[in-house]
């Protein structure tokens, strides 16, 4: 290659294995201003940032972590395709920075050898030098530079040490050293090449990380490890629900205040209603989950950066393997218990595209927190508060049963999907157990902020659109209620004659076998945007406030005017609960699925199969409970 100057802006590719500290380095170089997108045709995240080095603008591309440039899946092939300039719209990097963990140099140098074969200006960054020294490792950096023929820099990424030297180096890749001889292509020969290099430069291998060994003796202990694991998962749950609640209440007040302010400032009429009850309330109903989502992301990223996540996956992998998935899928599914949005995004840690897709498709079955208001209403109104065994009550048991139904369905459906539609892609299960490390707070914040920002952007676009649509359905056509009706009942009258009300009537024949009437139908339609909306919709229909007992009493005593039968009999309530266990009623989830799978095909598939499941299970439940004498 000639010595001609490289183009500007310079494109710099970061290559390295997962857990090598590549992302920390990327953040240290580019700050928190990375641009995130997807590579065409695959679901791999594309991250690019920029910096100014020596007066020249450099674009840094954080390529996906990989152990080898020989791909086993379309996602893995992105790295070598980008390097080959074979990805449309993505220009190949002009220079490469290989990021390698100094402690696992014996393995990482295999990848370095592969990258050097590409013949581009390359340099090597050794990360986690602090851990390397602490573990007794001794390395001669200058000799390594000579042996490899390229520049070698040592950094401690999360403390930013050595990054300045790297920035200087980045300013002029034309002057980087080149190897005299390219490393061998054959793997075994390359391994010999690695051995000879290390024999000249690695004076002492690092021993195992003592802290990691000590912690793992407990964490991976057959008994204590499993108990700890269970404990961590319960703590995770508690955290989400306990800590998020005050923030959620605060947001709810804020949204209410914004809506009230809108009504106060604008003249009463369509515009005020639209802005306050359509836009603000609609987007607000999703934004209210932001505290929970941020918390889940925080815990997920924290456990991941600490190194615990891989241990959790290790413990649980065997069970997940029985349903065709793997340990890392468990963590993603567990997160979906709070909200499917971070759960689906957490599937990025799963290397196998098929496994990731199946996990994404079954995530909505995990009982997310949006179902709780619905369950709370129905269980609170219809399940007697009887004690079953000591402090354990019937209501709690029913709730637990619903949670278990969701989780077991997720596992069952994934087993079915892996056996039929999405059989394995032959990717071997391999997982590295990194050393336990103190997470970099900066990295943590940038990770959480990045994910939260993505969620908010979605709330601002798709959900906005759907909220508007729903508001239109619920408020048009405008019908004047008879003037003698009190205002609350007038609202109910208006709802009955709106488009949504008419749609409810229209689908009544279809949902009648489930024991649902048109009012529930309207609620179901409204809940397609977000599950808990049904509570507010039912409240509007029953012209009751949805706090505490008035809605409960209303639904308990509602009778069909024609037949005199209870609208909400036992069979209907059971069927409705089961319907909510299965149906995908969440715009945010669909939007996240779309983003993570890079197409509308899979969200559509998920919506349909879950609707079929919901209908079938609901129908069966209604039949069974009726047969057991539950119908009024």
């Amino acid at each position, binding site marked *: 290659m000639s010595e001609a100057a490289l183009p500007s802006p310079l494109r710099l590719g970061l290559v390295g294995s997962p857990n090598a500290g590549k992302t920390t380095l990327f953040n240290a170089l580019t700050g928190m201003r990375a641009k995130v997108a997807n590579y065409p*045709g*695959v*679901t791999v995240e594309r991250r690019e940032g920029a910096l100014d080095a020596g007066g020249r603008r450099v674009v840094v591309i954080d390529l996906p972590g990989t*152990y*080898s440039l*020989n*791909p*086993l899946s*379309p996602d893995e092939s992105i790295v070598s395709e980008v390097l080959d300039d074979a990805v449309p719209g993505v220009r190949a990097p002009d220079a490469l920075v290989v990021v390698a*963990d100094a*402690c*696992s*140099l*014996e*393995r990482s140098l*295999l990848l370095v050898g592969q990258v050097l074969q590409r013949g581009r200006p390359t340099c090597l960054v050794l990360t986690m030098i602090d851990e390397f020294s602490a573990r*007794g490792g001794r390395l001669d950096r200058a000799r390594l530079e000579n042996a490899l023929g390229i520049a070698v820099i040592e950094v401690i990424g999360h403390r930013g040490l050595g990054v300045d030297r790297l920035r200087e180096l980045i300013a002029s890749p034309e002057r980087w050293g080149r190897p005299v001889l390219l490393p061998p*292509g*054959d*793997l*075994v*020969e390359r*391994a010999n090449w690695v051995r000879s290099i*290390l*024999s000249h430069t*690695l004076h*002492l*291998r*690092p*021993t*195992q990380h003592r802290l990691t060994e000590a912690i793992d003796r407990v964490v*991976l*202990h*057959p*008994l204590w*490890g*499993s108990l700890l694991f269970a404990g961590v998962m319960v703590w995770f749950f508690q955290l989400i629900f306990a800590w998020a609640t005050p923030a959620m209440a605060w947001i709810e007040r804020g949204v209410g205040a914004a809506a009230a302010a809108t009504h106060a400032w604008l003249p009463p009429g369509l515009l005020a209603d639209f802005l306050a009850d359509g836009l603000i309330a609609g987007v607000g109903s999703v934004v209210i989950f932001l505290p929970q989502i941020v918390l889940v992301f925080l815990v997920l990223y924290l456990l991941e950066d600490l190194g615990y996540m891989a241990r959790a996956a*290790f*413990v*649980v*992998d*065997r*069970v997940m393997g029985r349903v065709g998935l793997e340990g890392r899928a468990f963590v993603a599914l567990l997160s979906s218990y709070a909200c499917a949005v971070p759960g689906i995004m957490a599937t990025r840690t799963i290397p196998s*595209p*098929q496994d990731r*897709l199946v996990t994404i498709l079954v995530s909505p079955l995990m009982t997310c927190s949006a179902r709780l208001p619905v369950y709370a209403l129905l269980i609170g109104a219809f399940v007697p508060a009887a004690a079953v065994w000591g402090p354990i009550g019937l209501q709690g048991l029913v709730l637990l049963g619903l949670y278990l139904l969701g989780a077991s369905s997720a596992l069952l459906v994934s087993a079915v999907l892996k056996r039929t539609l*999405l059989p394995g*892609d*032959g*990717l*071997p*299960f*391999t*997982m*590295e*157990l*990194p050393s336990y490390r103190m997470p970099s707070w900066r990295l943590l914040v940038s990770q959480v902020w990045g994910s939260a920002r993505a969620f908010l952007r979605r709330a601002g676009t798709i959900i906005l659109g759907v909220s508007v649509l729903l508001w239109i359905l619920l408020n048009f056509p405008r019908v004047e209620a008879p003037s003698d009706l009190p205002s609350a009942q007038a609202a109910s009258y208006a709802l009955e004659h709106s488009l949504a009300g008419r749609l409810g009537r229209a689908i009544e024949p279809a949902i009648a076998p489930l024991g649902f009437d048109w009012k529930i139908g309207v609620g179901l339609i409204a809940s397609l945007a977000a599950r808990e909306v049904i509570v507010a919709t039912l409240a509007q229909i029953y012209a009751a406030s949805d706090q505490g007992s008035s809605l409960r009493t209303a639904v308990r005593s509602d009778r069909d005017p024609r037949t005199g039968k209870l609208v909400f009999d036992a069979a209907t309530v059971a069927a409705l609960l089961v319907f909510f266990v299965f149906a995908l009623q969440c715009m945010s989830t669909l939007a996240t699925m779309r983003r993570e*799978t*890079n197409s509308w095909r*899979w969200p559509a598939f998920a919506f349909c199969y879950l609707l079929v499941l919901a209908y079938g299970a609901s129908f069966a439940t209604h039949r069974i409970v009726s047969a057991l004498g539950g119908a009024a």
Partner: protein
Amino acid sequence: MKTNFNFDYCPDDARSLAPGGQLHSKVRSEGIDTLRLSELEPGRDATVAWIEGTRPEDLRLAELGLLPETPIKAVRRAPLGDPTEFELRGYRLCLRRREAERVRVRLNGKPGGIPRGPG
């Protein structure tokens, strides 16, 4: 999402793995006793002999460092019995029995550590 994925990786990388290639012939000719990596008891040290098979998945195991003459140690089994944690080349790798079965290793004399010196 592409489900039928055809890729061609550099065949050079697999040359040694093929039957008759460096990996197979070297150890077989010396008639050394080998066992499957999945049979290696936790706490025991071994040295990788060869990998059975020449599929891309096998190449991946080799690229993860499971190459001939690589010292490897089984650290522990997961509480439920699978996967197993191994120590090699300065890092910890978890493999299921299904993958570990395909790797053949030979035992190193007495239980001890992986040598600290280079090479």
